[in-house]
């Protein structure tokens, strides 16, 4: 597997709105300490925030994983369901199945996955209904 030099995992709970963004903030802080360029850091932070919020809003729980290799940062979002039936539909700007509760808090624009894709240098999503969704995003740092 990857020749990472750092690998951290951050668990994310379903519907944890009050602590939403905490995992991303920790990842951002860590990468800042590691001296990652601020423009790249900003892209990573947006992507990880969107991934974290999707875990909270749409998944049955999962984790964010941050791997650092000499040349890149890899962000992985992994959950245990419910999975996405139609990925190309989910990737469309404006498509959202967010609950009323989530929409009241300002989520549900259907912009999260497009934001991740736009900010990452590489973006890969796989999903199986009833099993879970995995998103892998790569960011070049050298």
């Amino acid at each position, binding site marked *: 597997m990857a020749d990472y030099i750092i690998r951290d995992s951050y668990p994310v709970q379903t519907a944890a709105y*009050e602590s939403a963004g905490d995992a991303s903030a920790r990842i951002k802080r860590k990468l800042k300490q590691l001296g990652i360029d601020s423009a790249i850091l900003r892209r990573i932070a947006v992507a990880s925030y969107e991934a974290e*919020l999707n875990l909270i809003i749409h998944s049955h729980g999962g984790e964010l994983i941050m791997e650092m290799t000499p040349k890149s940062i890899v962000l992985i979002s992994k959950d245990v369901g419910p999975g996405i039936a139609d990925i190309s539909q989910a990737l469309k700007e404006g498509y959202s199945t967010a609950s009323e509760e989530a929409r009241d808090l*300002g989520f*549900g624009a259907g912009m999260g996955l497009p934001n991740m894709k736009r900010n990452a240098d590489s973006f890969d999503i796989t999903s199986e209904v009833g099993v879970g969704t995995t998103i892998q995003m790569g960011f070049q740092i050298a």
Partner: protein
Amino acid sequence: MKVVDLMHLLEAENLTKEVSLEGEVTCGYSCDLLSWVLAHGKQGMGWATVQSHVNVIAVSVLMEMACVILVEGVEPEDATLAKALEEGMPILSTEKTAYEVCGIMCKAGVAVPGR
């Protein structure tokens, strides 16, 4: 202009007394959809919203904004205020609508992001 100047211009109240208002407001925006703001937010932004939840601070800090402007007298939740103080993000509160706030910012020459 500085956040403190914007505060006077909007006749807004500063809800985060311990936070510096010396930051430069370089552009203005209004939107209540957080992912939309994450797509269009910019550093130095003065962001007018009716959202009062703690995630407003997460988003504004991520975007390195100058301040959050809560419109129409919307009150922040306790967690939002606490997070704003912790992160040093100014929150201004005004009875004005987002429409009025943007009108005032535009008239004062605050830039439209990306232009």
